């Protein structure tokens, strides 16, 4: 199998996009554009860190990448690179930079280990957010999201995988945002303003009392159902 041209991963403050360091720049960026276009809703508004490894990226190339992201409503907020040329380009575009020597997560993944364990055990990545997510905050993740705290009205959690809220879910939650219909949303108190799983959506019924028992939302028979666990 050919090397992945791009890898997208959720971080606490946005998304990390790693671009292949060897493939032709044009094909890498074309590929990125089409990946984003497939899931434009998932990516909208996200803050992006781009990891470019050792590839020297001149200013005009980085500038076109920045424009590519901005046209799709994404913000390029940071560039990770080992190359001085790339970092100079980023600085010229007023994008903050960091030197990622030793932080390349793809290089850090031991290849053999992932081959010998079953994919579920080797783990899908996710974000752990350790406090209440308040109005105006949005978490995007390409994996799962775990919130130790409440998700308040006006806050959003969008995950390609599952969402677990160890607290009260009263804001917006979208699990399986890239189309995974087996994704689930769990919360100790399930009272979201809007709940989505893959392409399905329910809005909060105007009821007085919320479900205060732990609950799991999932898709069954083509619609979202909420099961409580006593």
């Amino acid at each position, binding site marked *: 199998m050919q090397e992945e041209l791009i890898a997208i991963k959720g971080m606490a403050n946005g998304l990390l996009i790693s671009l292949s360091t060897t493939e032709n720049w044009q094909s890498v960026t074309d590929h990125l554009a089409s990946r984003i276009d497939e899931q434009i809703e998932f990516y909208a508004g996200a803050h992006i860190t781009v990891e470019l490894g050792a590839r020297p990226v001149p200013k005009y190339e980085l500038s076109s990448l920045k424009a590519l992201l901005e046209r799709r409503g994404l913000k390029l907020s940071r560039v990770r690179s080992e190359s001085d040329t790339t970092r100079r380009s980023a600085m010229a575009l007023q994008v903050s930079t960091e030197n990622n020597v030793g932080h390349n997560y793809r290089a850090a993944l031991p290849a053999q280990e992932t081959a010998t364990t079953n994919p579920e055990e080797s783990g899908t990545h996710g974000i752990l957010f350790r*406090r209440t997510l308040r*109005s105006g905050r949005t978490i995007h993740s390409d994996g799962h999201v775990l919130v130790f705290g409440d998700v308040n*009205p*006006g806050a959003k959690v969008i995950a390609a995988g599952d969402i677990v809220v160890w607290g009260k879910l009263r804001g917006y939650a979208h699990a399986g945002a890239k189309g995974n219909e087996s994704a689930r949303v769990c919360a100790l108190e399930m009272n979201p303003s809007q709940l989505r799983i893959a392409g399905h959506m329910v809005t909060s019924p105007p009821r007085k009392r919320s479900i205060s028992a732990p609950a799991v939302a999932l898709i069954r028979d083509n619609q979202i159902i909420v099961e409580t666990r006593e």
Partner: protein
Amino acid sequence: MAGKVVTVSSGKGGVGKTTATANLGTSLASLGKKVVVIDADIGLRNLDVIMGLENRIVYDLVDIVEGRSKLRQSMIKHKKFEHLYLIPAAQTRDKMSVSPEDMVKLTDELREEFDYILIDSPAGIERGFRNALEPADEVLIVTNPEVSAVRDADRIIGLIEAAEKGPGKLIINRLKTDLVERGEMLSSDDVFDILGLTIVGIIPEDELVLSASNSGVPVTLNEESKAGQAFNNVARRIAGEDVPFMNLNDNPGFFRRLVGLFNGK
């Protein structure tokens, strides 16, 4: 001992930030503290009006920051309290005239001389709010028991946490106990349930606050006023005293909890 900078903020306008700042200022001053209150709402100043000091303004915050006046000569002394001063906002400029760094510099100077520096933050989450937040050691969030005010408070608390100034403490202002009883207004428990912050004050709705604001006589000096006494309690809590919450007598949640205590539940 260096003074403490306490910023009073809310997100939403009209919840009683300025009134709270003025009253906390007078309450702290009655406790014998040296207090200066700063109006950071440049362009829409009104702390001076509520404190009854509008006619004495010669210089303002922007004059100090831009070096046109000395700090000493710009502070207005309160009529009733010897150790209470006001630094008014400029009315003719906008929030961009002052930077967060200016505010840090100014408050660092004031810390030398005062026990408490209270900053009245403007509504909103933009520059004016940043100016008020940057020098803060502690943030008080004023909210009303209404869904929209609580939502905005939540947003502000998120920003305060992000700036590592948080999480702040909560003042619930203008609680109408009869409405809470009928289930038509959020109770203080409901507000706590959403925001999860320590509550340092529950201020009941009180017409005497309005007449005090118009006359410029602090409501905290009026022993008839429940709101005035509630503000005094907040001030004592800020000063480190452990003050029990007032029984707003017709608050059913509170009353029921008391009954529950007596029944050993």
